[in-house]
């Protein structure tokens, strides 16, 4: 699975970090970091993360 976050849209709400903590996190500077090629087993939580992003900045490219 391939995950792309539009960092121009991201406003660091962090909802994706709650939904999929294995894929999304905040770095020490408080900015979003993520795993671009997470394991297929994490699909449900990545889809959840994409759903709950207030800016709809997360795209899943199979």
């Amino acid at each position, binding site marked *: 699975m391939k995950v792309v976050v539009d960092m121009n*849209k991201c*406003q*660091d*709400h*962090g*909802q994706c970090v*709650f939904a999929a903590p294995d894929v999304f996190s*905040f770095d020490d500077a*408080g900015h979003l970091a993520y795993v671009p090629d997470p394991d297929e087993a994490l699909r449900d939580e990545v*889809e959840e993360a994409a*759903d*709950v992003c*207030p800016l*709809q900045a997360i*795209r899943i490219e199979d």
Partner: protein
Amino acid sequence: MSAPVVVAGASLGGLRAAEQLRAAGWDGPVTVIGEEPYMPYNRPPLSKEVLAGKASFDSLAFRPRAAVADVEWRLGTRVVRADLDRRTVGLADGTTLPYAGLVVATGMRPRRLPCPGPAAGRHTVRTLDDARALREALTGPGVRVVVVGAGFIGCEVAATAVTLGAAEVTVVDPLPLPMTGPLGDLLAQALRDRHEQRGVRFALGTGVTAFHGDDRVTGVELSDGTVLPADVVVESVGSVANTEWLDGNGLDLTDGVLTDEHLRVGGRPDVVAVGDIARFPNARYDGVPRRVEHWSIPTDTAKHAARVLAAHLNGTEPGLDPFAPLPTFWSDQHDFRLQSFGAPALGKDDVRVLEGDPDGDVLAGYHADGRLVGVVALGGAAAAAAAARHRAALLKQPALTA
């Protein structure tokens, strides 16, 4: 062909309901009916980035999941009646549709002020068309803006109007402070100070009695007789549930659609409600049914309701605990953000500053019976991050009893 699941309403709740029906194993047909001519789009930026011109109207469209590619979208028409005993809905274009399952997702519309006066120049902010019209009005030279209602939308629009260079922006509300309903007085005071420092004026503790002007509005008359000159008026005075089409089915429609703890309507296993129209008991709190207008609710309710409905239609057991979402809301105004987790409104009598102070970045804790039930941060990214650190603890708390 078997009857479809009909989803009445094609905004975020309707889209998520269709997607989650597929995810929950409903392989039959799905028909989504929407009054607006547009595919589902994201509404929060309508009072912020898009109104300010920082993001395009096109950027608002949601990307539906691939699993809903075969869903039928009937846009530009609305559901005008329902017969729940016969399992049919009627559309404005005269069509009658039978359904196997019905998702109520028709949402809310803005409440309008009943005061006398001209209609032209008075705006609301709910739809894309609303925001287009308001943006055009706000970008005129030296406009004087009166915002009626100091809630989320009123405060956001006031901030955006200042950003756009409006000559005067005044927010009117009968309550003594802005957003005091969701925030309580401590943060509402801090919020007012911040708005005033950035050029927003307030007329608080007063109502609106009339609009002045002949063909279009030129002023707003307040309860004490004062008239505020106005080129643009924004009415952000709450919302009304779009439930009229459900009349005559014996449902409790007093404020939205009453549901049970699994979002089912009227004791019927084949009818569920999602989004801000659903008045549901939250098992996390006191069990009192409430409507919730937060952005997260359409997605949360759709996920639960779709599993309940799909299980019924497929003859299986959903095996779900009662619906118990952790509320969360945010609001971006000027250069600061409000970020909340939990239910601050249930703890407004015992508000404590947990971090920072109200003049800068601040995190407030809201308590009921001495226990933390919600947090709200006001300020920059650090304050929002501080609020997020309390989320896990708020999730773990046992249910509050009334």
